[in-house]
């Protein structure tokens, strides 16, 4: 085993060095040559590190506020049901005061972290995965806090682990006082200005690449009704690599009082489009298929496949959709993939998802019929096909009312295989490996849980 570990270390270092220079994403479309490169640069076997992440309970079961713990095993071990993994007993705590938003290199050899909240909130660090609880910090630290605050919403772009992008939005109401400063009765609300900030980060050299801020407008009608962009997240690159798409959440206020509205019509899903890498020329595109937000939660919400970006939406009144943005950087409103219809449920809500290079995806979701567990609605996994717009629940994975996927973050894609974690809050579970091509599900290593804690994925 010791010998193996050394091999892995060599492998990971090699893979890191080469992998970082030669995009080797299985999510990229044009990856066949790079995949080969990786294989050549790699080793005789096709193993990689699988890092399992758990969120420890703070004071309520499932709150995940007690720290994010990670532990790495080889892909063979991950697939072996006789192996037990106990990150809550002997893992490594990611340095983040609140739940860390982790990212891994595409080959699993490096974990990227930006600390969330606290004195180091916004600080980027990377760790070499060396097996077990050993994560060795590498490179220097850099902070994006001055650009996007201590609680940054960031994601790694699929450009060969080169770049991370983080976003921020602040809003301000614009009021016309009609020339009478002391009389509120003739004042009118004009719009709410949303200023977005976008920073890109060189993950290899720990340097800030670029930062831009923009005022982003909705249509005049939408703005007059009080709609505004209140949260943005989940940047993703288009295939050409010349546009960055950023998911958005819309909120609405009551123009007569400027107070928050709660019961209002949900608008078509929107995405902010920026030039890349200049981060200039913002525009907003709107879907006529999906309604609701596109900013996801903690897990990557939009992916490039076959020349288009596929994006999940949330809080859609007719159930989550997977939306398609084509190479022309507009929504393809002829692409209709509604999860309610595909699964035959009501109120499907995509919590996290991930496609493999073959266009088949694993979706973590809940729906209106989900049981209410200890920490919220019960979650399920489905296997979906972006081409046929179909999805089926993966029944080979056991479900339980306390199986909760809201904070779920990580899927490892290894070829056509996708690794997920399954464990109800406070109960043991397993890694499951889904062969997206065949639909075959392999029960992998046992996940040893701790009271009130839950697993949030593989990296």
């Amino acid at each position, binding site marked *: 085993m010791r010998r193996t570990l050394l091999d892995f270390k060599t492998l990971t270092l090699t893979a890191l060095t080469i992998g970082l220079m030669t995009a080797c994403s299985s999510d990229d479309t044009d990856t066949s040559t790079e995949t080969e490169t990786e294989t050549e640069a790699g080793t005789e076997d096709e193993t990689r590190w699988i890092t399992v992440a758990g969120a420890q309970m703070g*004071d309520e*079961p499932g*709150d995940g506020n*007690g*720290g994010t713990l990670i532990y790495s095993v080889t892909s063979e071990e991950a697939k072996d049901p006789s192996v037990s993994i106990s990150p*809550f*007993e002997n*893992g*490594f*705590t*990611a*340095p983040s*005061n609140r739940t860390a938003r982790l990212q891994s290199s595409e080959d699993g050899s490096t974990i990227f972290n930006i600390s969330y909240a*606290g*004195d*180091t*909130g*916004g600080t980027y660090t990377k760790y070499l995965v060396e097996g077990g609880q050993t*994560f060795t910090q590498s490179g*220097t630290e*850099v*902070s*994006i*806090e*001055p650009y*996007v605050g*201590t609680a940054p919403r960031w994601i790694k772009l699929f450009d060969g682990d080169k770049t991370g992008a983080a976003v921020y939005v*602040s809003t*301000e*109401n614009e*009021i016309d*006082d009609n020339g009478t400063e002391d*009389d*509120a009765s003739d004042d*009118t609300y004009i719009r709410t200005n949303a*200023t977005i900030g976008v920073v890109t980060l060189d993950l290899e*050299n*720990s340097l*800030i*690449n*670029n*930062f831009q*801020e923009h005022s982003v407008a909705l249509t005049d009608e939408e703005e007059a009704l009080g709609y505004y962009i209140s949260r943005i997240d989940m940047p993703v690159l288009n295939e050409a690599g010349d546009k960055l798409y950023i998911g958005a959440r819309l*909120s609405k206020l009551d123009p*007569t*009082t*400027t*107070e*928050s*509205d709660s019961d209002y019509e949900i608008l078509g899903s929107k995405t902010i489009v920026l030039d890349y890498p200049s981060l200039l020329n913002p525009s907003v595109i709107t879907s006529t298929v999906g309604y609701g*937000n596109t900013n996801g*939660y903690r897990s990557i919400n939009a992916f490039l496949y076959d020349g288009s970006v596929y994006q999940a939406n949330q809080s859609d009144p007719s159930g989550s959709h997977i939306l398609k943005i084509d190479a022309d950087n507009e929504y393809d409103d002829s692409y209709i993939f509604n999860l309610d219809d595909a699964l035959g449920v009501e109120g499907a*809500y995509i*919590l996290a998802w991930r496609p493999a290079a073959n266009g088949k995806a694993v979706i973590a979701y809940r729906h209106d019929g989900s049981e209410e567990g*200890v920490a*919220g*609605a019960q979650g399920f996994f489905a296997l979906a096909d972006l081409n046929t717009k179909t999805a089926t629940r993966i029944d080979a994975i056991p479900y339980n009312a306390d199986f909760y996927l*809201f904070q779920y973050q990580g899927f490892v894609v290894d070829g056509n295989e996708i690794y997920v974690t399954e464990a109800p809050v406070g109960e043991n579970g397993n890694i499951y490996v889904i062969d997206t091509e065949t639909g075959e599900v392999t029960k992998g290593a046992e996940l040893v849980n701790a*009271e*009130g804690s839950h697993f949030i994925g593989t990296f």
Partner: protein
Amino acid sequence: MRYIIFVITLLFFNIIHSQTGLISGTVVLEDDSPVINAHIKVLGTNRSAISDFDGKFEIDKLQYNTYELSISTIEADNKKVSINIDKEYNTIIIRLSKKMNQLSEVVINGKSIETEKETSGYAVNVIKTKEASLRNIQTNDLLNTTVGVKIRQNGGLGSEVNYSLNGLSGSSIKIFIDGIPSSVYGSSFSLNSIPPSMIKNIEVYKGVVPGHLSDDALGGAINVVLHKGSKDFFNAAVSYGSFNTIQASVNGLYHFDKSGFTIKTSLFNNYSDNNYKVSGRAIVVTGLGGVQTPITARRFNDVYRSTGGMAQIGYTNVSWADQFFIGVTASDDYKEVQHGAFMTIRPYKDRFLESDALLANLIYQKDDFLTKGLAININGLYGSRNRTVNDTVAAAYSWSGERAIDFKGDEYEYTWGSQQEGGPTLAKIERKVASIRTGLSYKINDHHKFLANHSYSGIDREDSDPLLSLLENTFIGTRDLHKNIYALTYELVTLDQKLRASVFGKYYHQKTISIDPAIAQDENGNSIVVDEVVSSNNKDDGYGFVTSFAIHPKLTLLASAEKAIRLPDETEVFGNDGDNVVANTSIRPEKSNNYNLGFRLGAFNIKKNQFTVSSNFFIRDITDRIGLPIENSLNVDDELIVYVNQGNAKSKGVDAQLNYSYKNNLGLNFNISRFDLTTTTDAGTEIDIPNTPFFTMNGSLRYSLKDVFQENTRLNLFYSLYFTGEFSYLNIPSGVGGADFFKVPEQISQDLGISYAFPDKKTVMSFDVKNIFDKPLYDNLRVQKPGRALYLKINYTINNY
């Protein structure tokens, strides 16, 4: 009635030739504890004195003769002793026996000394401020060295303070100033700004709070008792030290003996640049590309200034009142904010807070009111207080104090347009405040006594922000809070004073009113602004008992328990528009069952050594804790988040204290406090609540020398040691890596001080060195506190001019 012992000790220093002499005396109880504020009169003359905090007094220029001294005090039976003045310097120790009804007297007058309070049955510490007021010590520093108390302050002088008693903190702990909730005064007149010289003593009630301190104090209360009495005095002090810290105070009282007319004033001014050095993982300057270089930085936006005072006129010791005062309290403070709750790589520049308060006050106190045995005590306050937050600078600054550069090397501004994320603000909160506390007590005889207390406090709050449009300001709601608390207490003293017990019940009634402007149509169909008024009533009750039993003259057992509650605050009831939290008018108060069991051993006298040991074991068992529900996919985009009663917590631990003295020269005090703060899951597992300093120790040593350099002087040397054990921001199980990141390391700090009382007995000079070894001290959330600091202070006091 016990028999009276008295001892006269005459010490001869040298033979002198003058025709007048001086008496230097000490008034003590049988257990050698000092009697404060005893009135000593030389019969047949017009000379008199009042004993100080150490029971000491002096009367000079007495013709050689034999005199009779009359000693009167509320704590002990009056007594007469004779003394022969036949030399220049005469000393006397007068021992008094305790009064039978002293517990009653304690409660009515709030005038007792620490020993009496500390054996009354409560888990209480009484902190004397006399010595500290002569030194360079902040009121908060004094509290922090008290057993079971932990102060977590977010920086240097004037920064935000959170008080923790036996593990409970935040809004569970109520602070009172003369029995009035300190929230009525606001931050400008608080323990941060009030100098120790204005304070008579500070009472810290842990877990069980007496009926006269009426508030919903879940975990205990700290009551700051300001000077009372009718003794003429004038005191002025000024202190200067590190970080350009200047603190000055003036206090005075003048009493017209014939009419009883009394004038009292206190003034204070505090200023500090707080520009102490900080370093650590977030203290860096960033260069091109965001490359970080660690530095040791001086804080540059942390100035604190507070000014305030109190002026009162009235009558003392007249037939219709023991105390009657009307007066005004005014205060004003300014505090720059260097960073948010955490020290991050982004220091703030030009963000500051200002607050002010202007309040009228009334005090009336009378024993034997209307009938013998009935005592009344009224303390009222009415006025306004305001607070503003000013944060309008968008420019980014670095820890070097200069403009920061961005990744391209250019000076830049923050996207959010202000220093703290959230946008520019000039938010102003205006509050009209009123509070009145009334206490009635009726003593049936020496064994039975009833006390009734009522406290009302009301706050009308209005928020506005000049940076917002009038339209937005119009629709900012207002919140009013009215709290009435009634307490009824029965006290029993029996078994030859060996058993003291009291039981009390408290009734809480809180009315919160939300006034939220909304748009409506008038008869003509025009839109008009109307107020939507929603009110919420919270009623609850609590009860408790307190008992002390002297199983031996040297061993007293103390037990107390209370079912305490904390009423939900206005945000918990009505939510907060800014945070998308909406009203939950059915929210219930937090409840806690608090238990104390302790003992006090001593005082033992072995030759000239005296020591006392006391300890208290405690449990605080909180249910219905109020919090926000965890975020999940159902509520993540919801505007409808409400505060709910969801959690529980338990604190279990022990406090212990040792006092030792040798003659009157050497004093040693050591205390230790340790507790476990846990929450219990549904499955019954106890989980530690992190970010809690659970282990603290404090030690102090005082050595006193007489007649150093000159006669009639006193030199005091002080040494203090503070220890806080390591604790972690998150609970990391042992065996898990990466735990160091979250740890707040063990902290040890040592202070040295020296004070010198000049022969005129009016001037005292003090010099203090804080944190002599310049160790890094952290507080809440790893915010660094000042390193080594030096302070010099001069006090000038005249008694009985």
